């Protein structure tokens, strides 16, 4: 095992997807904590569905599969979706879950239709990719071994999803640290927060924007399953471990990291342990590991019950 990890092949083939998976999981789990506490856990679900038409439109307009136009397209689609959901909710006085359901399914359907009608499928842009990403195809061609991590020339050829997600993760982490008190207050006691003059609406919008950025940046590399699973599962499991927000965030990051690394290892090497040379879907396995962690927390987490509920 150690020998395998030290080999150049590991750095070339296994390290990039592990790194990208890890960064994506952390970037999604972090804002997921606040979404969970605000009962907005399904926003990640909606955004990752909505990103598809944005990405397809960006491709049709620019004719390339470059990352930035697609990120912009997905971001624009997310904005349109949020505006539509609000309009449906307010004008129709429709409950927000149903309003969300209408908008994200319709936009996703439009994305699939656009995809089918265009020739995008010839450039590896297809629905399967959107759903479960292409972690396995991330390869660091110039890697000669672990030493390449210190070699600027080799580092420049890392799959670009890695530095992009690193930037997103650092930005979200910094913003979370910077606005920690505001986020905590508006999450736990919005009435009090607005009474002492905090712009609750603005902070909520900022959180939604950070969520969209994380979802869209991760979506491209790892597909929507991981995005949805990471917004919900690690924070939910962490919530069952502790009552303190700081510890919950820390737990959720640990769980996200375990899911990312453990899921990738199980998917890539697991079948080998049963004597099969093949690999199974890494994105799917990461979600499954996250689910297993959540299941364990549901069964044995020290703070799994509602306050006031007696142990049965």
């Amino acid at each position, binding site marked *: 095992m150690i020998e395998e990890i030290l080999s150049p092949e590991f750095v070339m083939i296994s390290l990039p997807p592990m790194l990208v998976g890890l960064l994506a999981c952390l970037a999604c789990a972090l804002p997921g904590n606040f979404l969970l506490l605000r*009962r907005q856990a*399904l926003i990640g679900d909606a955004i990752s569905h909505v990103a598809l038409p944005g990405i397809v439109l960006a491709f049709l307009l620019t004719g390339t599969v470059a990352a930035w136009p697609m990120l912009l397209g997905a971001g624009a689609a997310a904005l349109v979706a949020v505006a539509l959901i609000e309009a449906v909710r307010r*004008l129709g006085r429709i409950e927000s879950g*149903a*309003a969300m359901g209408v908008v994200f399914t319709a936009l*996703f359907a439009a994305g699939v239709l656009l995809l*089918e009608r265009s020739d995008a499928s010839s450039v590896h842009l297809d629905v399967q990719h959107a759903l479960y990403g292409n972690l396995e195809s991330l390869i660091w061609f110039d890697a000669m071994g672990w030493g390449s991590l210190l070699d600027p020339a080799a580092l420049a050829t890392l799959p670009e999803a890695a530095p992009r997600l690193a930037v997103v993760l650092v930005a979200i982490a910094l913003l979370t640290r910077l606005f920690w008190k505001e986020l905590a207050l508006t999450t736990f006691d919005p009435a009090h927060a607005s009474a002492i003059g905090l712009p609750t609406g603005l902070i909520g919008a900022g959180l939604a924007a950070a969520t969209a950025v994380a979802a869209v940046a991760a979506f491209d590399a790892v597909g929507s*399953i991981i995005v949805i*699973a990471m917004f919900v599962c690690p924070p939910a499991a962490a919530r069952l471990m502790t009552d303190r927000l700081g510890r919950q965030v820390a737990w959720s990051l640990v769980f996200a990291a375990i899911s990312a690394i453990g899921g990738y290892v199980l998917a890539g090497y697991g079948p080998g342990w049963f004597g099969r040379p093949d690999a199974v879907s890494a994105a799917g396995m990461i979600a*499954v590991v996250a689910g297993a962690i959540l299941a364990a927390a549901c069964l044995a987490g020290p703070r799994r019950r509602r306050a006031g509920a007696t142990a049965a």
Partner: protein
Amino acid sequence: MEALAALVAALTLQAGWNASLVALGAGMLGLAAGGAGAFLFLRKRALVSDAASHATLPGVAAAFLVMVAFGGDGRFLPGLMLGSAISAGLGLALVAWITRATRLAEDAAIGAVLSVSFGLGIVLLTVIQIVPAGKAAGLEGFLLGSTAGMLQSEAVTIAVAGAIAAALVFALRRPMTLVAFDPEHAEATGVGVWRTDLAMMGVALLVTVVGLKIVGLVLIVALLIIPPVAARFWTDRVSTLALLATAFGGVAGYVGAAISSIEARLPTGPIIVLAAFAIFAVSFLVSPRRGVLAALLRRRRLEARVHLRQGLLALARGEAVYDRLTLRLLLARGWIRRDGAMTEAGRAAAAAAALDEARWSLARRLLPEAGVAERYDGLTPIGESLTPDQIARIDRGLARPEALA
């Protein structure tokens, strides 16, 4: 033109036996989905079915593996449907258990079950790729639905199952309406809320399973959510809402399936969803009660009334009016001339407005017991708010202001 002819043929069931069966099946499915969805919507459970539909994937994949392991054809549709129903049921049970046994809210439970079971399904799909019989399994078709190249037996299965689901919704409509409208009352009259909710989830499950092949598991939830939301724009009555949602769902399923049968590159699931969304979009725009156009019109009308009233009061006080909109409105009513001078009718209207305003302000002092202050909005003529007797009393006061002091 050719496409139009093909569409007409498909809509009138002239496009071949299979296509007709699929269109009928999709129509039945839509009816059942709209009806069941209406009750899910009213019970605020709309997104629970999203967890169930994503949870079908591991069931489909596992059923395929089991059938292959026993030497059968892994693509046998009823077998796949049974597998998907079992795992979707498990998914629903998990959502219920997480919400009850832990302190996590329902949305978190839904998100977790949805994503994890979908991830598990994808893992199993890649396992299927590994086993020899799985190379051409084509189970990816269940993600977004595909009716192209459907076997006749499959089309029959779907049409029959869709009809059963629609019949179930019809049979359960009374208890479901009662529970949706007033759960406590329903419980008191002996309609078990828990039992009815369970039956409703059962129908939603059936819709999901039947819809797998046509609409696909990613989008089937749309057929449960969009029709009732569209119906909500037209009515406030539970029974009408259920009826409308059923009809909307049926039309979306039937028309969507017919459109997609015209050409290969019109995927069935997305087209059906977009057909439902088109119905929603029309409702959202033009519904007379809650539609966007109606809201805009109401706003314009209110704005016009405020401007007219304020313009008339200004004219009555002998002040000049500068506001463009006010001037235009006064001109359109024939109350002023182009040079801004009042017409005869304008003088009468201004005098009436001034009298009304004077009556209101006195009414607030004379009749505090009638809640006049709350009813004054600066627009409503006083005659609509007070009785002639009360107005006569106010007018006596206006005629002799010194008597009031």
